[in-house]
C-alpha cells in the first residue's frame, strides 16, 4: 500500500495542471462552442513570458501578475473578439482549423520575439522547491508539489464560488449544462463569451506557470503533452462535465505516476507505454464514449455542415479567360521546370524539388480534407510511416529505394485504413482529436525506436538508381524530374478519384451524411477508402522526402508538422490539386526566401506564422484564401474584358444561396 501511494502521490501535481487546463477546455467549449487546441500554446506562452521575466530579474509576484493575470486573459479576449466570434457556430471545420492555427502560430511567434535560446526552469511561485514540507504516506512532499496542489485547490474553489455566486457565473454554468438552451433563450451575450474566454485562458496560463518549474527547460513540446492530457481529462467528462474533468485530470496524473513507479525504467513499458498513456486514454475515450461520438450530431441535418464553398473559378470563369489562365499556367510551369534543369543554382533547385515532394504530401490533404471533408492532424505521421519503411528496407534489406517508397506508401495506406476503423463513427472534432492522439502516439511510442525511426543520429536514405544513373551523383536535377513524375502520377490519381463515382459519393457525404446514407451510400467504405488513399499518398511523399534529404529522423515527421501542413494547405486551397501544389512549392519557396533574413528571422518561423494567419480566413473562405483571391482577380479581369468586348457567352455567376441553406448563417461577406 505504501509503495502504491508513494508512486501515486508524485503524479498529483502533474494531474492538477492537467485538470486546470481541462476545466478551461470544457468551459470554453460549452459556452462558446469552440474547442480551443490553442490552450496548449497559451499555457506555453505564459510559462515562457514568466520565465523570461524572472530571468531578467523581475520579482516573482510581478512576473506572475504580468504573464498570468494580465497577458493570458488579454490573449483570450483578443482571440474571442477578433477570431472565434466571427466564425459561425455551425462551421465546425472553420473553428477547428482556427484553433489549430493558434496552436501552431503562438510558439513560433514566441521564438521570433525572444529567440530560440534554451530557457531553464523558472522559480516556483511561493514555496521552496527543494524543501520537503511534510510526508504524505511516507512520501516526501516538496514545495513545488505542494504549491501546485494548493494553487489548484484555490482555483477550483474560486471558480465554483464565481459560478455559483454571481449572475454571470450562473449564466456560464447554464451554458455549460445546456448550450442549446442558452442559445434559445438568447442570453448567449458577448459578455458571457468574453468572460468564458478570459477565464479559461487565465487557467491555461496558470497551468503553464505551474508546470514550468517541473521540467528542466521550458519548451513547447511539454505543453503539447499538457494539452493532450487535458483533452483526455475533458473527454472523460464528455467535454461537458467540469467536476469529471477535474477528477479525470488528477486521475491521469496519478496513473502516470503509478506507471512510472511500477515499470522499471529500462523496460519497454517505461519507454514506450508511459509517454503514450494520455494519448491512448484519449483515443479509447473517443472511440468508446457514446456522448463524445455524438458530439457533432444533431437532429438538424444541416447544423453540422459548413457553408458550401462557392463553385471553383474553373467552373465560373469564361472560356477566353480560362484559356489564357490555362496556357499561362502551363507556360509558367514549363519555364520553372526548364529553369531548374538549366540555370537555377543548386540550393534553389533543392528548394523547388522539396516543393514538388511536399506537393505530393499535400495532395493527401486534398484527399482527406478537400474530398473527405475531415480534418486530419496526423498526415506527417503517415508520411513518416512511408519514409521509415522505405529507409529501413533500403538500409537493412537492400531494397531499392523507389520500390521501398512504393512499399512504404502501401504500408502507410494500411495504417491509414486500420486507423480509420475506430474512426468510422467519428466526424469533425472527435475525429480530429483522434488523429492528433495517433500522431502523438507515433511520436512518443513508435518512431523513437531504432526499428522504426532509426538510431538517434538518423537513418541514412539512399538516392534512387535508375539503370546506371545514380540520382545522387548526377546532381539533384535527375531527382527533380523523378519527383515531378511522381507528382504527376499522384495528381492524375487524385483527379481520377474526384471525377469517379466515389468522388460523387464523397461530395454527397460532405454535404449531408444522413442524406447520403438515405440513398444507399456507405459512409464507412468511403471513409476507409479516403483515409487509405490519403495515407498512402502521404507515405509516398514522405519516402521521397527522405530520399531527397538522404537521411530521416523522427523529428522530420512529428505532430507539429502535421498541424503546419493543415494550416498551409488550407490557406492555398484544400479543394483543388493546384491548391496542393501551390502549397508545396509556395511553402518551400517562402522558407527559402525568408532564410536570407538575418538571425532568428530566417528560421522559417515567419512562414509558418504567415500561413497560420492565412488559414484563419478559412472560416470565411473555405475554398482557401488563394482561391478566393483568384476569384476576385478573375472577376476583375472579366469585367475589364467585357467592357472592351461585350460578352458573347453569358457568364453565370453563382446566385445567393437560398432554399436548402435557410437557417445556415451565410459566412461569405
Amino acid at each position, binding site marked *: 500500500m505504501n509503495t502504491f501511494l508513494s508512486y501515486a502521490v508524485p503524479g498529483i501535481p502533474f494531474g492538477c495542471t492537467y485538470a486546470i487546463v481541462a476545466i478551461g477546455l470544457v468551459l470554453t467549449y460549452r459556452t462558446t462552442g469552440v474547442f480551443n487546441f490553442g490552450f496548449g500554446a497559451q499555457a506555453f506562452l505564459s510559462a515562457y513570458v514568466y520565465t523570461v521575466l524572472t530571468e531578467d530579474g523581475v520579482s516573482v509576484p510581478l512576473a506572475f501578475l504580468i504573464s498570468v493575470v494580465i497577458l493570458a486573459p488579454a490573449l483570450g479576449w483578443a482571440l474571442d473578439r477578433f477570431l472565434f466570434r466571427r466564425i459561425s457556430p455551425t462551421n465546425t471545420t472553420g473553428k477547428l482549423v482556427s484553433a489549430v492555427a493558434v496552436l501552431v502560430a503562438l510558439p513560433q511567434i514566441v521564438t521570433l520575439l525572444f529567440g530560440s535560446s534554451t530557457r531553464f526552469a523558472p522559480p516556483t511561485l511561493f514555496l521552496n522547491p527543494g524543501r520537503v514540507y511534510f510526508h504524505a504516506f511516507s512520501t516526501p512532499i516538496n514545495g513545488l508539489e505542494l504549491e501546485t496542489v494548493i494553487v489548484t485547490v484555490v482555483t477550483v474553489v474560486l471558480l465554483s464560488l464565481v459560478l455559483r455566486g454571481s449572475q454571470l457565473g450562473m449564466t456560464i454554468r447554464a451554458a455549460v449544462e445546456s448550450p442549446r438552451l442558452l442559445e434559445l433563450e438568447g442570453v448567449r451575450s458577448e459578455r458571457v463569451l468574453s468572460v468564458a474566454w478570459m477565464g479559461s485562458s487565465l487557467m491555461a496560463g496558470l497551468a503553464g506557470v505551474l508546470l514550468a518549474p517541473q521540467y528542466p527547460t521550458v519548451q513547447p513540446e511539454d505543453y503539447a503533452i499538457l494539452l493532450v492530457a487535458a483533452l483526455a481529462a475533458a473527454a472523460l467528462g464528455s467535454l461537458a462535465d467540469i467536476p469529471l474533468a477535474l477528477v479525470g485530470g488528477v486521475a491521469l496524473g496519478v496513473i502516470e505516476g503509478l506507471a512510472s513507479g511500477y515499470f522499471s525504467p529500462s523496460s519497454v513499458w517505461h519507454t514506450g507505454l508511459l509517454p503514450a498513456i494520455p494519448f491512448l486514454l484519449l483515443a479509447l475515450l473517443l472511440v468508446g464514449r457514446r456522448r463524445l461520438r455524438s458530439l457533432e450530431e444533431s437532429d438538424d*441535418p444541416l447544423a453540422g455542415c459548413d457553408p458550401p464553398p462557392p*463553385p471553383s473559378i474553373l467552373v465560373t470563369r469564361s472560356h477566353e479567360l480560362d484559356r489564357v489562365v490555362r496556357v499561362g499556367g502551363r507556360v509558367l510551369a514549363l519555364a520553372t521546370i526548364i529553369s531548374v534543369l538549366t540555370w537555377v543554382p543548386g540550393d534553389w533547385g533543392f528548394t523547388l524539388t522539396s516543393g514538388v515532394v511536399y506537393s505530393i504530401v499535400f495532395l493527401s490533404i486534398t484527399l482527406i480534407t478537400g474530398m473527405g471533408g475531415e480534418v486530419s492532424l496526423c498526415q506527417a505521421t503517415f508520411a513518416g510511416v512511408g519514409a521509415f519503411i522505405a529507409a529501413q528496407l533500403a538500409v537493412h534489406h537492400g531494397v531499392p529505394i523507389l520500390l521501398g517508397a512504393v512499399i512504404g506508401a502501401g504500408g502507410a495506406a494500411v495504417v491509414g485504413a486500420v486507423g480509420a476503423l475506430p474512426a468510422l463513427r467519428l466526424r469533425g472534432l472527435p475525429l480530429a482529436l483522434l488523429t492528433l492522439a495517433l500522431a502523438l502516439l507515433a511520436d512518443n511510442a513508435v518512431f523513437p525506436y531504432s526499428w522504426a525511426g532509426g538510431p538517434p543520429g538518423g537513418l541514412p536514405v539512399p538516392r534512387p538508381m535508375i539503370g546506371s544513373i545514380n540520382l545522387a551523383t548526377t546532381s539533384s536535377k535527375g531527382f527533380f524530374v523523378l519527383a515531378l513524375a511522381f507528382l504527376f502520377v499522384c495528381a492524375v490519381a487524385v483527379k481520377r*478519384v474526384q471525377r*469517379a463515382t466515389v468522388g460523387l459519393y464523397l*461530395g*454527397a457525404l460532405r454535404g449531408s451524411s444522413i442524406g447520403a*446514407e438515405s440513398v444507399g451510400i456507405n459512409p464507412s467504405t468511403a471513409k476507409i477508402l479516403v483515409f487509405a488513399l490519403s495515407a498512402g499518398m502521404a507515405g509516398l511523399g514522405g519516402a521521397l522526402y527522405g530520399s531527397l534529404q538522404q537521411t530521416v529522423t523522427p523529428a522530420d515527421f512529428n505532430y507539429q508538422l502535421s498541424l503546419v501542413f493543415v494550416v498551409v494547405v488550407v490557406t492555398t486551397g484544400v479543394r483543388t490539386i493546384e491548391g496542393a501544389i501551390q502549397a508545396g512549392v509556395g511553402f518551400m519557396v517562402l522558407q527559402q526566401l525568408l532564410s536570407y533574413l538575418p538571425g532568428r528571422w530566417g528560421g522559417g518561423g515567419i512562414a509558418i506564422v504567415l500561413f497560420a494567419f492565412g488559414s484563419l480566413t478559412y472560416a470565411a473562405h473555405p475554398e482557401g484564401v488563394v482561391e478566393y483571391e483568384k476569384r476576385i482577380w478573375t472577376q476583375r479581369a472579366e469585367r475589364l474584358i467585357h467592357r472592351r468586348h461585350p460578352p458573347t457567352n453569358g457568364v453565370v455567376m453563382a446566385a445567393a*444561396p437560398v432554399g*436548402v441553406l435557410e437557417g445556415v448563417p451565410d459566412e461569405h461577406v
Partner: protein
Amino acid sequence: MSEHQGVLSVRSLSVSFGGLVALDRVDLDVAEGEIVGLIGPNGAGKSTLVNCAGGQLEPTSGSVALDGVPLTGKAPYRRARLGVGRTFQRVALFPELTVEAHLLAALRAGRQRPGRWSELVDHARPSAAEARQIDEMLGLVGLADQHDTQVTTLPLGACRLLEIARALIARPRVLLADEPSAGLDRRESAMLASVLAQLPAREIGVLLVEHDLGLVARVCDRVVVLDVGHVIAEGSFDGVMETAEVRRAYLGQGVA
C-alpha cells in the same frame, strides 16, 4: 397483427428518449402501391417512426420489416439498397452537387447498384441509360430543364421535389415522405400531389407524413392518426376525422 405483411410493416414499435415515450407499441402497414397518410399533432412521434423505418434511429423495442424481411440492426444505407426511400423534414440535399449529380449518386448507390470497384475509376457522368432515367425522373417532378443547376440556388419547393426524385430514382419499394409539402407554394403542392398519385402505378408504397390535410384527403388510401406515441385512429380520411379522439387531439380539450 403480429405477422409482417405488406411492403412496409411496423410491429409494436416503441421509442423512448430518456423518460419521454415518443412511440408506444405502434403497428402500421403499407401495402404495395398503397398511399398511407400518417398524421397527428406536433410531437406525436411521426418523424420518429419514419426515422426508425429509415434506420436513422434504433427503436427501443419492436420491429420494422420490408417485404417481410426484418430491417432491425441494418444501417440506413443497407435499407436504402433494399428499397427504403425517404425524404427528410429538414431537407437533406448535397449543397455542393448539381441537380443531375444528386440523381446520379442516388441511382448508382441505390438498389440497382452496379459494381463495387468500378466506382473507384469510372466516370461520374450518366450513361445513356442512366441519362434516360434521370430525364424521366426530373420530368416527373417538374425539374426537367434544371440538370446543371446548383442546388443552393433552388427555391425550397424545388428542393423538396428534388429530394423526392432522389429517393425515387433507384425504384424503392416504399417511399417515406416526411412533410414533403412544408414550404411549398400552391403550384408545387399540385405537382407534389400528382407525383404521389403516380406512385401506386409504379408499385411503390408510400408513407406520407403530412400536416396539409387537404393533400392527405386527396391522395391517401388510408390514414393513421398518431397522438403522443399512440395510434388513436385508423381508416379512411373522412372516417378518422369523425372520431372523437382525433377531433380532441387536433382541436384540443373541450371539443368532443
